[in-house]
């Protein structure tokens, strides 16, 4: 546990601010009627959660989270929203059938997770713990990734290749079909 009380309080202030931001922007993603607004709230959620990761000492992952999610994935989302021109959604954005089931399921799951979290709320400040073997997390990640998990890296690379080919197969149209699709 950190002996410096001002550091503990600083950590606490950072944590509460960031987590409040994460949760409120996540709620905005769900309740927003406009898909563009949802996507922008999701960008905010990703950036704030990457800040939480950086606060926990995962500097490289925080940067990767911003680059990949806020940079690439969300641009893809916005691109699709603009491409399909989904400005106006249907008048009933919430499913009547799904809402009661969703609320009951999520309520019980949330209660269970809360109970588990209470078990782990022992009095150690996570951010004051020593970092795993020094603070050089990029070097550690690289060593671990390419020695212990080398086979997994190859499998994940293959997965990305399959995904890329799959998307091309899904969205590719022969010339004649695409013309009739555009005329519609």
């Amino acid at each position: 546990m950190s002996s410096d009380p001002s550091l503990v309080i600083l950590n606490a202030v950072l944590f509460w601010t960031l987590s409040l931001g994460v949760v409120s922007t996540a709620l905005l993603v769900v309740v927003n009627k406009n898909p563009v607004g949802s996507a922008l709230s999701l960008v905010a959620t990703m950036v704030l959660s990457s800040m939480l990761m950086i606060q926990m000492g995962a500097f490289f992952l925080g940067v990767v989270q911003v680059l990949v999610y806020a940079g690439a994935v969300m641009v893809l989302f916005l691109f699709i929203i603009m491409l399909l021109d989904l400005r106006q959604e249907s008048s009933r954005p919430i499913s009547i059938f799904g809402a009661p089931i969703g609320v009951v399921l999520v309520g019980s799951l949330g209660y269970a997770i809360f109970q588990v979290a209470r078990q782990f709320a022992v009095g150690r400040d996570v951010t004051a713990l020593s970092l795993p073997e020094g603070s050089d997390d990029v070097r550690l990640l690289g060593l671990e990734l390419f020695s212990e998990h080398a086979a997994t890296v190859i499998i994940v690379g293959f997965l990305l290749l399959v995904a890329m080919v799959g998307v091309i197969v899904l969205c590719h149209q022969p010339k004649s079909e695409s013309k009739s699709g555009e005329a519609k």
Partner: protein
Amino acid sequence: MSPAKIGVKIGRGKVITLGHYIAVSGLLFCIGLLGVLIRRSVLIIYMCLELMLTAAALAFVAFSRFNGCIDGQVMVLFIITVAAAEVAVGLGIIVAWFRLQRETDVEGMKHLRF
């Protein structure tokens, strides 16, 4: 249980324990699941899936920090990669579906029923 008592003595709101991070990540996961279950637009459902994946990543990072072991962060790297692949394929399916049906409503997706 002596560390817990120390934590209570210092003050519940001040020391940020592993439980706090698990609670935030669980809350994020619940919000994402709620969105998947109650929203009708398939794009919003995909965004909520991303929320759930982020929640899992947050929990992994917290446990990695707590245990002083880098394996959790390696797992998060794989989660991010799989999420990127999943988004690419999912959005491809959405575009192909939109070409057929001119809508992105999940309640209209009844063509794959047996």
